[in-house]
């Protein structure tokens, strides 16, 4: 529970990103190379000129540790890292959240159909899931992303712009379906053969009623246990894709893109990369701890394995 409150706290802070940005008076999505701020009564440019003649270009200001005043310093384009951190967190958590819902919804549907009806439907779904399961998730995500971020995607009337957050959500939601669908299918199959479902069939209950009354309630426990684990996994995946520049597209931010922005500043302004990483660790850790507790409470036999990143 303490773990859950840490995550909720992070979520609330990130949700207040626009409030922070307007209070600090910065636009986290526009470069401000010529901004000047006042630190301890001294005027300082956000982008400093090189002190030695040999260094190239500007170097952004480091952390001032003053809330609302470039708390964590600026990035390569003079943008307030703290404000971007909050906006990025909001994006990271939103993407992970919606992708989790997508994964669970499709996985449950596939798992129920394959496990309950068996036969040809099961064979087809299982084979496809086998292939997807064996396909390393990041490679699948890279293939999908690289195709979509070039020109976006057009599916009939639906047209998704290449910079849209819907693309990473869709990709991340898609790649983890087998991870949930396979255990759900297995559980539905064993429930299908359990005595109480046999009894219900014997009593003449309709398949719809059995699905609704006997199977879904049992499967939903598994699904609930999956929620924090999938959230954690999705946050790690999103950040990795964004770090590879095939997730959230600039000028939009996520914790992964900020770490990438910070890569070139690593030795001079390490906080640009450190801060979002720490946020990811805190969020994922709190989700994992919470997920562990939830699993011990709801699913003592541990059908669900802790996620891999």
């Amino acid at each position, binding site marked *: 529970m303490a773990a859950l409150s840490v995550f909720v706290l992070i979520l609330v802070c990130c949700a207040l990103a626009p409030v922070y940005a307007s209070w600090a008076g910065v636009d986290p999505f526009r470069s401000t190379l010529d901004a000047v701020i006042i630190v301890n009564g001294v005027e300082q440019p956000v982008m400093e000129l090189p002190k030695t003649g040999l260094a190239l270009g500007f170097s952004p200001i480091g952390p001032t540790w003053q809330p609302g005043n470039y708390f964590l310093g600026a990035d390569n384009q003079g943008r307030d890292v703290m404000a971007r951190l909050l906006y990025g967190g909001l994006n990271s958590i939103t993407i992970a959240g919606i992708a989790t819902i997508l994964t669970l919804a499709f996985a449950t549907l596939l798992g129920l159909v394959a496990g309950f009806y068996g036969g040809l439907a099961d064979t087809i779904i299982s*084979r*496809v899931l*086998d*292939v*997807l399961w*064996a*396909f*390393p*998730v*990041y*490679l*699948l995500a*890279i*293939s*999908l992303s*690289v*195709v*979509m971020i*070039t*020109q*976006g*995607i*057009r*599916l*009939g009337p639906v047209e998704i712009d290449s910079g849209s957050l819907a693309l990473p959500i869709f990709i991340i939601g898609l790649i983890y379906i087998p991870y949930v669908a396979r255990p759900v299918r297995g559980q539905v199959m064993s429930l299908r053969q359990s005595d109480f479902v046999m009894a219900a069939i014997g009593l003449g209950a309709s398949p719809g009623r059995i699905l609704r009354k006997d199977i879904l309630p049992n499967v939903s426990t598994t699904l609930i246990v999956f929620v924090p684990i999938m959230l*954690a996994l999705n946050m*790690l995946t999103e*950040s*990795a894709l964004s*770090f*590879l*520049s*095939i997730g959230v597209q600039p000028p939009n931010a996520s914790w*992964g893109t900020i*770490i990438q922005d*910070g*890569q070139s500043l*690593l*030795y001079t302004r*390490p906080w640009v*990369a*450190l801060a*979002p*990483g720490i946020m*990811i*660790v805190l969020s*994922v*850790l709190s989700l*994992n*701890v919470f997920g*562990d507790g939830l699993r011990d409470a709801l699913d003592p036999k*541990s059908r669900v*394995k*802790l996620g*891999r*990143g």
Partner: protein
Amino acid sequence: MVFAILQRLAQMVFVMVGISMLVFLIFFATPGVDPAARIAGRNASPEVLEAVRISFGFDQPFYIQYLTMMQKIFVTGDLTSFVNRGWKVVPAVLDTIPVTLSLVFGAAVLWVVFSVIIGVVAAACRDRWPDKLLMILGLIGISMPVYWLGEVMNLLTQSRFKDTWFLGWVPPLGYVPFSESPKGWFLALVIPWITLSILYIGLYARVLRASITEALQEDYIRTARAKGLSETRILLVHALRTSLIAFVTLFGLDFGALVGGSALLTEVVFGLQGVGKLTYDALQNLDLPVIMTTVLYASFFVVMANAVVDVVYILLDPRVRSA
């Protein structure tokens, strides 16, 4: 047993074909725009587009296109990049494979050795403080993005503690071929190995601890105690040995995840010119033929590794072996 192994190999071939079709569909048949425009890269001239169309047979039916692509990647190996005109992709990928293999196998060794040690130690002192401490550390390990950990490592070894006695031995970023200098090869890879394996050490130490603890509740452990065996022997020879079966199955899956994911990110962070870094560079300038090739080679490697692990599993578990 022979039948079980053959069955597993047949499944492997099926999955490989499935993956290659999936990759083909993603790259050539995603609804949207002309695949030729994607392959040609940004701002390609009409002549280049035309060259792409002919080279990949886009005027032919799908199955011909599929076979053409497979032939270019696996048989003739004459797939060329259009972003870097005329650059042969397949030899370039093959050149980078030793780097990636050095990285992943070294990391896998660390991963197995340390997760077994930590898992056994934690199971031996289960519910006491060393166990709790190790499990929390493991959980932190699981929760760190590997590329970020790599950057932190770089910050420490390449900048902040560069000239100190305890990290001063770390060479600058980059790969040294084994044939050139075994010592240089080793030193260049130590930090990447540690970085890459930490996540999996955390995960596997936890999995192994849980599975040993579960095994210790079994009746055969009581039998082993009644036989007068030492606790150490019971833990290592009976509980750990039976737990390893589960360990190996999971290892197969996660070794794939490591090769196809974390290793790529690690190569990028440490500037190791492996398959992952090649893919990353291709991602930056949207060189699709390169990405297609690396994705296919890497996922085939993963699928084969999984099959090998499953065969080991068949050899390891007498219950499966005789079935």
